[in-house]
């Protein structure tokens, strides 16, 4: 894992180092005299060689110091941490929804192959994976928030700061569902095909030859084996959900890290971008770790 983290840090750093345009210029704007520029560049360490800049930056990162965002005028780490929570809340609940719905519907569709449940399933999945999530968000807001008034239009909390848990939950519903739709489709489809594949295997025949109930055959013998193929994809979907959060946060004005990143890129706030991307990448690595652990728990053939 360590080499991956280091690799990520290098990539993140390089990306930002390659950004065209002079950051010092962008920061100083109309105050950019040659003297000021030179002084700022020296302050930001922009005049040092690339490798040294990387090492300085990475060294600071290990201490939790990502530098200072010039556009927001606060330490990057603070901003990133503030924004990380909402995104994780959004992504986490979406992933849970998607996994739950996906696994259940996929299994049902597999058991009732060619039945009406299966056909309905196919249609829903098709629509699910073909929908642009940002468009869907708009539609849902239009319908549920504007027309029906059931849910708030945007934001994570009411401005009239009751700010409690239930209030956040209320705001969470539409964004979480929207974000979950595509992931649900992918997980559901994979579950169905994995189950179908596993149900054709010989040990399923053996289990039936023992006279075991169909319920046991499907849920203990088949499902567990299907999970082996599904779990890695859950990990990948976690990544897609985090990525997709960028759109949802934009549509629903959710105060998350995705929206922060887009703005930071447009304003060329390098340090903020670096911090944000790095943290997200680390989280992704952690997710992969969790996936590996889960896989190991389910499949004894995989060595630690």
């Amino acid at each position, binding site marked *: 894992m360590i*080499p*991956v983290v280091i690799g*990520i840090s290098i*990539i993140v750093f390089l*990306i930002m180092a390659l950004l*065209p345009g002079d950051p010092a210029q962008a920061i100083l704007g109309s105050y950019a005299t040659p003297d000021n520029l030179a002084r700022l560049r020296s302050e930001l360490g922009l005049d040092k060689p690339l490798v040294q800049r990387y090492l300085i930056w990475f060294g600071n990162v290990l201490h939790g110091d990502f530098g200072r965002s010039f556009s927001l005028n606060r330490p990057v780490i603070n901003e990133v941490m503030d924004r990380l929570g909402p995104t994780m809340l959004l992504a986490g609940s979406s992933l849970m929804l998607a996994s739950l719905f996906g696994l259940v519907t996929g299994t049902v569709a*597999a058991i009732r192959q*060619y039945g009406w449940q299966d056909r309905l399933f196919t249609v829903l999945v*098709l*629509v699910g*994976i*073909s*929908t*642009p*999530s*940002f*468009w*869907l968000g*708009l539609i849902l*807001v*239009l319908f549920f928030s*504007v027309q029906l008034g059931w849910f708030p239009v945007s934001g994570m909390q009411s401005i009239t700061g009751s700010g409690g848990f239930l209030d956040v939950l209320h705001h969470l519903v539409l964004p979480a569902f929207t974000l979950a739709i595509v992931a649900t489709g992918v997980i559901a489809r994979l579950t169905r095909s994995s*189950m*179908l594949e596993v*149900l*054709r295997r*010989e*040990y*399923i*025949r*053996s289990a*039936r*030859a*023992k*006279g*075991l109930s*169909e319920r046991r055959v499907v849920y203990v*013998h088949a499902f*567990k*084996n299907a999970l082996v193929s599904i779990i890695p994809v859950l990990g990948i979907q976690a*990544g*897609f959900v985090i*990525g*997709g959060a*960028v*759109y949802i946060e934009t*549509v629903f004005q959710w105060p998350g890290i*995705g929206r922060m990143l*887009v703005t930071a*890129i*447009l304003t060329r706030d390098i340090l903020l971008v670096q911090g944000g*991307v790095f943290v*997200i*990448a680390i989280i*992704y*690595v952690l997710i*992969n770790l969790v996936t590996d652990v889960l896989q190991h728990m389910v*499949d*004894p*053939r995989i060595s630690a």
Partner: protein
Amino acid sequence: MRYRSSGLARFARNRTAAVGLGMVILIVLISLAAPILPLANPNATDLAIRLKPPGTAGHLLGTDQLGRDILSRLIWGTRVSLAVGLVATFAAAVVGSLIGIIAAYYSRWLDNLLMRGIDMLMAFPYILLALAIVAILGPGLLNALLAISVVNIPFFARNVRGAAVGLVRLEYVDTARLSGLSNARILFGELLPNVLPVIMITISTTVGWMILETAGLSFLGLGAQPPQADLGSMLGDGRDLILIAPHVATIPGLVILVLVIGINLTGDGLRDVLDPQLKSGALASPAPMTAVDHTAAAANRAAGTAGALAVSGLSTSFVLGPATVRAVQNVSFSVAPGESLGVMGESGSGKSVTALSVLQLVPTPPGRITAGSVAYDGQELVGAPLSTLQNLRGNRIAFVFQNPMTALNPLLSVGEQIVESLRRHQGLRGRAARQKAIELLDAVHIPDAEARLTTYPHELSGGMRQRAGTAIALSNDPDVIIADEPTTALDVTIQAQILRLFNELRVKRGLRLVFISHDFGVLSEVCDRIVVMYAGQIVETGSVKEIYESPLHPYTRRLMACVPMIGRAEEPLTAIPGLPPDLAQLPSGCYFADRCDLAIERCRAAPIELRTMSQGRSARCVRAGETAV
């Protein structure tokens, strides 16, 4: 002999795929025709008519915030979205596939290097990478295209490498080397064509994605820049207007939805065509019991003496599309208490299907029991409800399968797989169940039985696994064990041990054995009587001694003569010419006639009956019993 899959299932899929393809073609044609259609100028602004709703005169779909005609912008925008999606996919496919194939084919360290690099790229949520690339290069459609392409390369590389690695280990790559082909030739001439289906399937699943992703980037303002517009940027423009003029955003989104649905439908259809598993008809997962034709259930009579297993007139067929493979035809035999019956035949003879049919484990689809009866202890099994079968399976009649690696669930320990059978039929739980499981493992001579309870199948050797499988079969002290080629996959020294085990079980427990094998030597060690099958029919029955000393059917005789035996190397080997008949197109007379050295005209004229020659002795040959043979 391979049969094409059922027409019905594939057609249904193909119809939706055709619809999908139609949608895509329609959209493509319309967008291609944009220059010649009578459309308003997509860039002409006119603030006086801004935000007109759909249905306004002269503007079918209304106007946007700058007064531009939405219908026209829609069609022009679709062109852009389509073009970008296709180019991005193609680029990612070419680069990614190349990386994948090279990684799979060349040395391990190159593979490791490339794959670690891919892994690291995939460590970034795709959108971050895309955003970063666009940030470096600046917003713009071409840059968005590049970003999306690059970000999808790992996906192709992974998929293609996965498929190629499986192929590289296949021996036809070695065959190519032996034929003198150079590495480059092998890579592009041998590997690539076989990996192509995977590439095409991956393309079909990612084109839709690519279009969505580029639209997303444009939505955020990072893709198409004004005055250029694609569907995503139109959506982005309309975002802030959602409350006052929803049509500006909803319509482009709808088009994206329809387009991607069409593409995905087409992709699904393509996958069905290219996926080899689907082609050979192995679509559906098997039902818990074999389907029985009504006629079969109606004609049954529960027969047989108490405690006997009596099969009478059993016929099982496989329906594969237009062809019906008659795997088992009119098979009858019985196994009395204390007896051990061998079923001998080569592949395609129907011996395994017969065994599976007894407990109705033949996969449906495509199998069906078309006639006959299976009676156990006076109870009729064909047409019986699933619960009856489930009570019998693993309880009074148990199975031992051929391949112990695939017959055991890899994720459950050996102990669990024994205990679940004990629990199901005897209600044993906890310590009592564990105790019994240990006894069973001891009975099959697995050393260190208690420790073995928690081992998994992959941790055992082939011989041990087969013993474990036998232990499972013995769990509830069955009357009958049906063993389908249980030693074929084992080494000869291990086979000897397993055969001894079976004999011991027979004697000690009075177990009735139905033993299926192609090997007469094996059968003669464990069986009293033998039934010889060919092309789905029984062609001879008799005791082991009778069959060995005086085989009645030419097939039996020739089959035994063509097996090399130790110490008989000087005798010439008489092979049987030709091949067994196609079970979907059986001849009208004797099935063996074309390969038989004794065939006369009478043999081909009409179906041959199974003639009883004496007690327990029968043969399906008109010339059986003729002295000068």
